[in-house]
């Protein structure tokens, strides 16, 4: 039975508590890096992202053409499987990198790919830019981070439905319709400045127009084929995004100010790294979001002495994540506190690095009493 009642609402009880104890817009731990080295790692280039974008669009075109040519035979399924992952998983990472503005050196290239990726993912480019900004300011701070995927305890249906893109689709479709109607929820208003809202409304209306054209084409053809190209890939191609995305923070600490405690780096295969654009180096990305995706591996090599060891595979990461999620059903304060190597600077109390698994979490107001089974860190 859950001992705490966490309030993840952006304007809720725990949002206020986090603010009161200094967890909001706070200073975070950073590994020391000489300015010269950091400048070299932050340097922007167009070449790597142009190459990767050309490869991505070429692969999408080939797989889409194969799917269309063999439609409606089941022989088209492998082509759709590839197209779907590129449309609904690779575009997630393009949304992310171009949202940071770090994929390309040239600004319009970042902006153009950002808009395309947002459309594919059905993510309003204004809304999601600002929600991700908040995610970087207040990473996994309860009541402030709008991108917390797994609550404590986890909502299993949400985690499973997301494998098929359903939960995110429902939220994005609702946002599309309300924004097209010129409305924004109070929670969304809490992180989107007033000056930016008209752009969110305008884009939602344009997208509705595009979807109306796709629907008209489907009706005219008497086939769902147009939706296989636009829209439906969200349902049949999100699984890779979800598998990689769940590794970022699940099972780790809440309400700490050290990304080594709440983010996870996992070494994955080259194909997944292409799809995910190296976001498997997630501690590194959160600690230094200015470093473009194509230098994250170098950054990892440079600062790994100060980080918990990277997981050697996705399997290794999920062997840590799944038991932690199960344990959080009986003890929502449980989390995985990863051991630092001897070369690392220790977790520091001022960054809530003294928080131990199973102990009450600072900034959470829903405790019914002292935890009966609190245990020290393993």
């Amino acid at each position: 039975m859950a001992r705490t009642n966490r309030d993840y609402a952006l304007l809720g009880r725990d949002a206020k508590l986090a603010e009161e104890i200094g967890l909001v817009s706070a200073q975070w731990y950073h590994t020391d890096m000489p300015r010269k080295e950091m400048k070299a790692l932050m340097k922007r280039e167009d070449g790597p992202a142009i190459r990767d974008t050309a490869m991505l669009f070429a692969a999408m075109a080939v797989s889409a053409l194969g799917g269309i040519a063999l439609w409606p035979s089941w022989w088209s399924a492998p082509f759709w499987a590839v197209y779907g992952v590129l449309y609904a998983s690779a575009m997630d990472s393009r949304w992310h990198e171009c949202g940071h503005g770090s994929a390309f050196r040239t600004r319009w290239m970042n902006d153009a790919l950002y808009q395309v990726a947002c459309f594919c993912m059905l993510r309003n480019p204004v809304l999601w830019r600002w929600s991700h900004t908040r995610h970087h300011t207040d990473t996994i701070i309860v009541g402030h981070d709008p991108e917390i995927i797994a609550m404590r305890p986890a909502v299993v249906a949400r985690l499973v439905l997301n494998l098929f893109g359903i939960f995110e689709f429902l939220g994005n479709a609702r946002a599309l319709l309300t924004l097209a109607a010129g409305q924004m929820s109070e929670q969304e208003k809490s992180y989107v400045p007033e000056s930016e809202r008209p752009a969110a409304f305008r884009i939602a209306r344009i997208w509705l127009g595009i979807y109306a054209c796709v629907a008209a084409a489907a009706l005219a053809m008497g086939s769902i084929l147009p939706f296989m190209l636009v829209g439906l890939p969200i349902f049949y191609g999100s699984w890779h995004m979800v598998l990689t995305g769940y590794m970022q923070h699940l099972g780790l600490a809440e309400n700490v100010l050290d990304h080594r405690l709440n983010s996870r780096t996992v070494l994955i295969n080259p194909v997944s790294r292409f799809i995910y654009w190296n976001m498997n180096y997630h501690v590194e990305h959160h600690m230094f979001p200015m470093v473009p995706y194509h230098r994250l591996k170098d950054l990892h090599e440079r600062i790994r002495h100060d980080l918990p060891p990277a997981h050697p595979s996705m399997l290794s990461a999920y062997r840590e994540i799944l038991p932690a999620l199960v344990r959080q059903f009986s003890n929502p304060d449980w989390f995985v506190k990863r051991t630092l190597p001897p070369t690392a600077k220790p977790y520091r109390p001022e960054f809530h690095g003294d928080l131990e698994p199973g102990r009450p979490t600072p900034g959470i107001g829903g405790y019914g009493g002292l935890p009966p089974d609190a245990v020290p860190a393993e």
Partner: protein
Amino acid sequence: MPWIKACTTGDIEEEDLIRFDHGGRSFAVYHSPDGEFFCTDGLCTHEDVHLADGLVIDYVIECPKHNGQFDYRTGEAMRAPVCKDLGTYPVKVEGTDVLIEVPA
């Protein structure tokens, strides 16, 4: 307003910046790719992050926290999440000294 010595010309590489604190305020002093010097407020207008840890790309300073961008010559906010312009301050070079004119 007084002119204050912020640094010397050799203290900042071209296409880079340094932090300069004075009178309880923080400033950022820039050395542009064509050798000119500029000065702005030192904190991002979005969330009070020190710009000195950011990246200078031509005439743009990018905030290290959320990648918001400003034109450091004019202070103009160029890319979300920054919406409010940076304050800018006059700069002159005397010999090797970089002087900025800041509010008293």
